[in-house]
């Protein structure tokens, strides 16, 4: 379906849905209560047969609603994407209906969103952390979590006692490595640290 078609079809079936500003594909803001019905409608009636991604946005500790879950759907026949976004009702215990009943592939996407943001998906058969270990006390992609990490104990008590190793913040060495666009030579534009006070080209500062 083209952008105009899917917009009209959705507005007809679900008049309470609002459009969302988007640069590339049609995007819609949906209430959490409607999201399962909208996803099912898009999959069954509008031929958006593939769930490409389930992720979330953390707007910051001072914004409300704080967490927004985003779904990306693809129509493999019409080669079109659509984006759906739903804001979680609660800022402290965010929850959202799970899409596992519609697409089995949503299983790990939702586990990752739970691991990184703390958003629980109701109806998920096996909601546990996927990259970090069970019992990790933080949610890494929330805005208050520092980029390098927080020092904690290793998950396995025996290994931690034997090796005396801890989960330490990773050495950032001058900040996250980002590209600078607009440079002429690729040697200048390639990813480098924001703070280059000490590199191979410059002397170590005293």
């Amino acid at each position, binding site marked *: 379906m083209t952008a105009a078609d899917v917009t009209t079809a959705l507005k007809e079936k679900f008049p309470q849905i609002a459009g969302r500003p988007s640069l590339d594909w049609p995007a819609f803001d949906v209430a959490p209560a409607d999201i399962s019905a909208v996803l099912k409608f898009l999959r069954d009636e509008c031929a958006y047969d593939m769930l490409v991604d389930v992720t979330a946005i953390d707007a910051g500790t001072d914004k409300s609603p704080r967490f927004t879950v985003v779904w990306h759907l693809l129509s493999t026949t019409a080669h079109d994407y659509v984006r759906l976004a739903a804001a979680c009702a609660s800022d402290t215990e965010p929850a959202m209906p799970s899409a596992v009943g519609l697409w089995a592939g949503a299983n790990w996407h939702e586990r990752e969103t739970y691991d990184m943001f703390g958003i629980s998906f109701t109806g998920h058969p096996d909601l546990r952390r996927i*990259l*970090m*270990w069970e019992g990790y006390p933080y949610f*890494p992609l929330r805005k208050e*979590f520092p*980029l*390098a*990490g*927080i020092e904690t104990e*290793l*998950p*396995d008590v025996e*290994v931690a006692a*034997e*090796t005396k*190793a801890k*989960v*330490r*913040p*990773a*050495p*950032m*060495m001058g900040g996250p490595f980002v590209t600078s666009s607009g440079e002429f030579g690729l040697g200048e534009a390639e990813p480098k640290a924001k703070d280059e006070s000490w590199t191979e080209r410059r002397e170590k500062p005293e």
Partner: protein
Amino acid sequence: MVSANTELAYNSKIEGDVIVSRADAVINWIRTNSMWPMPMGLACCAIELMASAASRFDIARFGAEVMRFSPRQADVMIVAGTVTYKMASALRRIYDQMPDPKWVIAMGACASTGGMYRSYAVLQGVDRIVPVDVYVSGCPPRPEALLDALIKLQEKVRREPAFTRLHTA
């Protein structure tokens, strides 16, 4: 240099039936030439590890083609890939299950120092949890680099006294 002697083997008519040597030399020769790896292949470096075990970069020339996935039967653990904190526990347990003498090759940037993943989830170097003998740089290292590391490990083993390895920490 060309000589008329085409025999490369040990000839007991010439050399006699008894060889006298140092125990260290014999034991280390045995250890270096049959170093069975425990491939801890976690990520992309594992593909290059497989390539070095395949026909073009034959690791069998060095006696190390016997990739034993049981740590009980392995001599050297080749950590090939990114070690997350979640996996670190399993990795240390497998290292503990290897019998002495044992060595570790940290293959690639992720195993040596955490690589490009300066992250909350990635162990910044496997030497935080196991003692490493040889580090290989590269992302991923060429198979020839891994073979070079194996050769360096063999030289290291040749130099060390053979009996200290019976009880290590």
